[in-house]
């Protein structure tokens, strides 16, 4: 099949746009998890929070026809679960790995149960329309690639510099990083470990709820296990990104873009059907390879998963 130059460009543009879209929910969830982990708390339940946020948003939009309410409900659900998780993790010092998986199971089952009980047969909702940004949207090539996305994409990528700023240039961010490294020292300097971790966990889970809400709205539907283990990949990407918002963004983009490229190759028959399973491995393998290549020397927050007890 003869591909004209402009057709090839069109396909590349479509692929990159697709990669950005696919990366968005990973990015949101991953940013939240990164924040929590920076403060020293691991949350394996991200996927469960995403699912509950997704259902909440979906149901809200079905009832109210307002997408923004949906997003808000998703965030609210995340915040609520965040409070609960912070309580059992910080006050009750529950083992973080276990409680996380418990929340995942609960979210997975509860979201589906509520869906079956209150919705029954799936009804579609309309997603956000792509934003029309004056001048930028109309640009050739770059326009479709970067400037014709829905508002959720811009919120997600916009959060990256915001979180970077907060983490590296505010006292609050400094506190978070300090208690993640050495809570005793931070405590002795007057930083409230409890309060800071509480806030980090709550915000982090709020972002996970937002990620789920964004997913449901963008896909225009809810389904059992809508996230399909996205939350766990988001957790993995936190490690890829070395707990920095920028790193997490790159990780999400790598994963999303590889998925998009594989899709295009399959669409054009470059990847034969017999190899389609092998092709589905690509995002995972390439993410590992990317990290090997970069081979940064990084350290995880030293206090990660260790509960802090005042006075030892």
């Amino acid at each position: 099949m003869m591909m004209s130059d402009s057709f090839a460009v069109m396909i590349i543009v479509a692929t990159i746009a697709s990669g950005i879209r696919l990366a968005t929910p990973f990015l949101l969830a991953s940013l939240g998890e990164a924040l929590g982990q920076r403060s020293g708390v691991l949350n394996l339940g991200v996927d469960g929070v995403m699912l509950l946020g997704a259902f909440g948003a979906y149901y809200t939009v079905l009832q109210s026809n307002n997408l923004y309410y949906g997003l808000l409900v998703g965030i609210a659900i995340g915040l609520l679960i965040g409070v609960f998780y912070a309580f059992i993790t910080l006050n009750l010092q529950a083992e973080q790995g276990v409680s996380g998986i418990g929340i995942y199971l609960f979210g997975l089952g509860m979201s589906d149960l509520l869906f079956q009980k209150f919705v029954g047969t799936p009804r579609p909702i309309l997603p956000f329309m792509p934003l029309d940004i004056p001048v930028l949207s109309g640009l050739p090539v770059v326009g479709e690639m970067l400037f014709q996305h829905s508002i959720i994409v811009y919120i997600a990528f916009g959060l990256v510099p915001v979180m970077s700023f907060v983490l590296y240039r505010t006292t609050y961010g400094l506190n978070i990083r300090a208690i993640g490294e050495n809570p005793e020292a931070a405590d002795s300097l007057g930083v409230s470990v409890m309060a800071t971790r509480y806030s980090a966990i709550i915000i982090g889970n709020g972002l996970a709820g937002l990620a789920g809400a964004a997913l449901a709205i963008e896909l225009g539907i809810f389904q059992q296990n809508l996230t399909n283990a996205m939350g766990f990949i988001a957790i993995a990407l936190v490690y890829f990104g070395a707990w920095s918002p920028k790193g997490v963004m790159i990780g999400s983009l790598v994963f999303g873009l590889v998925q998009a490229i594989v899709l295009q190759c399959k669409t054009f028959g470059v990847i034969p059907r017999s190899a389609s399973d092998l092709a589905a491995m690509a995002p995972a393998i390439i993410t590992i390879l990317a990290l090997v290549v970069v081979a940064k020397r990084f350290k995880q927050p030293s206090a990660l998963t260790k509960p802090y007890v005042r006075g030892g």
Partner: protein
Amino acid sequence: MTALLISFFSYRFHVKTTKTKSFIGLIIPLCAVLLALAIGAIMLLSLGANPISGYATMFGAAFGSVEGFSETAVKSIPLLLVGVGICIAFRANVINIGGEGQMVMGALLATAIALAFPDIPSLLLIPMVLLAGAVGGAFWGAIAGALKAYFNVSEILSTIMLNIVAVQFMNFLLRGPMIDPAEIARGTGIPQTMRLTENADLPILIEGMRMHLGVVVALFVAVAAYILLWRTAMGFRLRSVGYNPHASRYAGISVPKNVTSALAFSGAMAGIAGAILVFGSESHRMVTDGGSTGFTGSAGFNGIVVALLAGLHPLWSIPSALLFGGMLVGANALQRAAQVPSALIIALNGLIVVFVVSSEYFKQRTLQAGRVEQEEDDDE
């Protein structure tokens, strides 16, 4: 309230015996389970089901009969094996989230052996396939271990990613080279192997029940892991690396080699679990549904819960796995009896896990209040 009562009594009697310790150790998580079940009862009622009869079925199915217990035992096998592997890994400070993928790779290699050598007698073939399972899982775990040790790639990242790779590889093999020839003939293309040789069937231990040799293997592995960790030099090195990598390096212990070994051991156990799942299964074939976890039933994941609830101790993992397995079996029976959506059962399982792990706090407080000596983590 119960915690207060117990702490009061313990204080009054100044009991220091392990008997009270164990009693408290059991009763507090039990209260947590009851609380979770109470919430579950509300959910059941809202769906029009009868919680009393439902829960009666649940307990009866899990532990109430020989048959039920044998179902629970079989369900617990992969949980115990993966859990024991996690104990080893976590003790070396390596977080292995790759149980799923390691089970798959172990199962694939074991199945390949059975397909390649169907005529070898049971006495030899069964150990061979179990060994193959261990090798397959160890290999997969070692990849993640080496990536961490020599390239500083977080094992959490690599194991999660390798899970995805393993499942897709399984889909590829089961739809392609390893598929049942009958499927090709019929054109249906179900991703499964042919019925594997009977020589590899795990022998049933109790007539008429489903409990098979896998139970013995799992118990054996748990004991072996305990011995490895506390009675061998290798185990010492693993624990040392986990406890203090700097001091270990200073003492001449190779951190990279031990990190890789830890993940290899952990993977090996998950691999054996995968093999046992295949050869102890009802269908005696390897089959997947194409889903993201394949045939494992999330054991690679739940095994982490089992290990952590057991305090990362291989021997305590045995009751932990049995209880978790019982919960899974009972919950499925509850679904059938009360005819509630499976989703409720999953949510209930999650609630139980969250509540039990949160109750640890009350257990510790009660033990302290009763001035009972706390068990050292590294004690046997």
